[in-house]
């Protein structure tokens, strides 16, 4: 054999071995000194001492109540938990809440539903290009062109009006689903809507799509894991044992809104994502799922997006990325690029910033526009570092 041939074979072997090593790294899970499955270990007392000024500035913004409670004015924080480097470094509650009270997540529940979709993929129960009609029955044929990935990206094309209180109640698809004609079988209600666009062509943030996604995931996982699949596959492994996830009369989890947990437990969910979908050496989400979910969704990048949509969507997470194709800049320019958040109505947030190794949870009841998300996170980050 000529030297050149040996050289080529050796090169190929090296490339192959390198590729295998890379794959092994990609699939490996982060190491931590401990995992908070039972509870968080706390460094809050030491932080309170060493970061007094930063905490005071943070609390002056976050826990300053205005006027009478009945007036529902200003910033109304119910709880904050901050986890840095795997340790609880800050925790405080307000307005009658304690560490033991569960709090509604509202739309932050959507990120849980996206997580359950990832778990269904990991379990080979769902593929991203599966039709939703493989899982949800009695839908119009035309809606069978909607795939699982379209729901993950809020790109089904269904004609849906995500309207809440103080607007036209009768035009609100969301209120009709949760409290009106759709409440008994939410997924069927959502799936019966006509499409106003081709799947993947229009970004339209919708509690209906998260509910439909929850129905898909439920139909895929229930046969193997039972009706408590969300607890078996997600909540119990990461220690969110006290989580409530409500269902409609058809047994579909209300995947867009009705999930409840304590702030400490919400922080465990953020910590799962901070650790690339791994928990205590076990890979819960598929390799690459976290990275893909925290990039700009294809539908958001290439499809039609409302001009007044200032936040940027990944796959069931809000992310801090510019989208030049849409002429949109980073939604929170003062925050790290890799910040992403599960966000819910009236001020519920699970924030993850991998570059700072931090998870920030905030529950609240903001009924006006006073609370500023970016200001809150920026002040929280100063508790960890002056930068």
């Amino acid at each position, binding site marked *: 054999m000529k030297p050149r041939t040996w050289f080529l074979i050796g090169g190929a072997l090296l490339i192959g071995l390198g590729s295998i090593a890379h794959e092994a790294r990609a699939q490996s899970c982060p190491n931590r000194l401990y995992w908070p499955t039972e509870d968080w270990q706390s460094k809050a007392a030491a932080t309170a001492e060493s970061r007094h000024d930063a905490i005071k500035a943070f609390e002056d913004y976050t826990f300053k109540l205005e006027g009478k409670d009945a007036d529902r004015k200003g910033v109304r924080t119910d709880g904050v938990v901050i986890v840095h480097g795997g340790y609880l470094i800050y925790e405080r509650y307000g307005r*009658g809440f304690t560490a033991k009270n569960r709090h509604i997540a509202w739309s932050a529940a959507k990120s849980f539903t996206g997580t359950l979709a990832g778990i269904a993929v990991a379990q080979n129960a769902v593929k991203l290009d599966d039709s939703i009609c493989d899982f949800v029955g009695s839908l119009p044929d035309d809606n069978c062109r909607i795939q699982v990935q379209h729901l993950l990206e809020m790109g089904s094309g269904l004609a849906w009006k995500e309207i809440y209180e103080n607007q036209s*109640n009768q035009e609100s698809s969301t209120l*009709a689903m949760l409290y009106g004609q759709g409440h008994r079988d939410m997924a069927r209600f959502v799936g019966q809507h006509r499409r106003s666009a081709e799947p993947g062509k229009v970004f339209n943030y919708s509690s209906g799509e998260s509910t439909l996604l929850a129905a898909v995931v439920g139909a895929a996982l229930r046969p193997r894991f039972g009706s408590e699949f969300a607890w078996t596959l997600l909540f119990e492994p990461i220690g969110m044992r006290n989580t*409530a996830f409500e*269902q409609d009369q058809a047994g579909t989890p209300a995947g867009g809104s009705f999930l409840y947990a304590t702030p400490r437990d919400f922080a465990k969910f953020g910590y799962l994502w901070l650790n690339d979908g791994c928990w205590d050496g076990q890979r819960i989400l598929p390799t690459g799922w976290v990275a893909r979910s925290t990039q700009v969704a294809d539908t958001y990048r290439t499809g039609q997006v409302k001009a007044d949509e200032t936040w940027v969507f990944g796959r069931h997470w809000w992310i801090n990325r510019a989208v030049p194709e849409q002429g949109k800049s980073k939604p929170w320019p003062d925050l790290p690029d890799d910040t992403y958040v599960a966000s819910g109505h009236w001020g519920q947030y699970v924030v993850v910033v991998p570059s700072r190794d931090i998870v920030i949870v905030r529950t609240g009841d903001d009924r006006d526009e006073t609370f500023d998300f970016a200001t809150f996170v920026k002040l929280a980050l100063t508790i960890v570092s002056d930068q």
Partner: protein
Amino acid sequence: MLTRILIVVALIGGAIGCDSYSENDFELITAYTAKTMCMCLWVEDQTEEYCAAWTKENPPVASYRVDWKEKAVESQAMMLWGARAHFVSDRLGCILE
């Protein structure tokens, strides 16, 4: 009194002339009140006083009654519209009937 009558007419009329969904505001508000009171009391473990304040809608047209024994909440508006929600379990929270 005139104000109340005008509010009622406006709320019922909310559904008229709209081609979207059929429920009027009374139906939506009573359903919201029953469901939200239920989850606030037995999922969030809050006090009735807190839950009543948190759930209160504007205008406050819905009244509620708590069935502590059955862990259920009934809500009513104008004696014509009503809804009921009950607690299912610690994991499944409340359900609107």
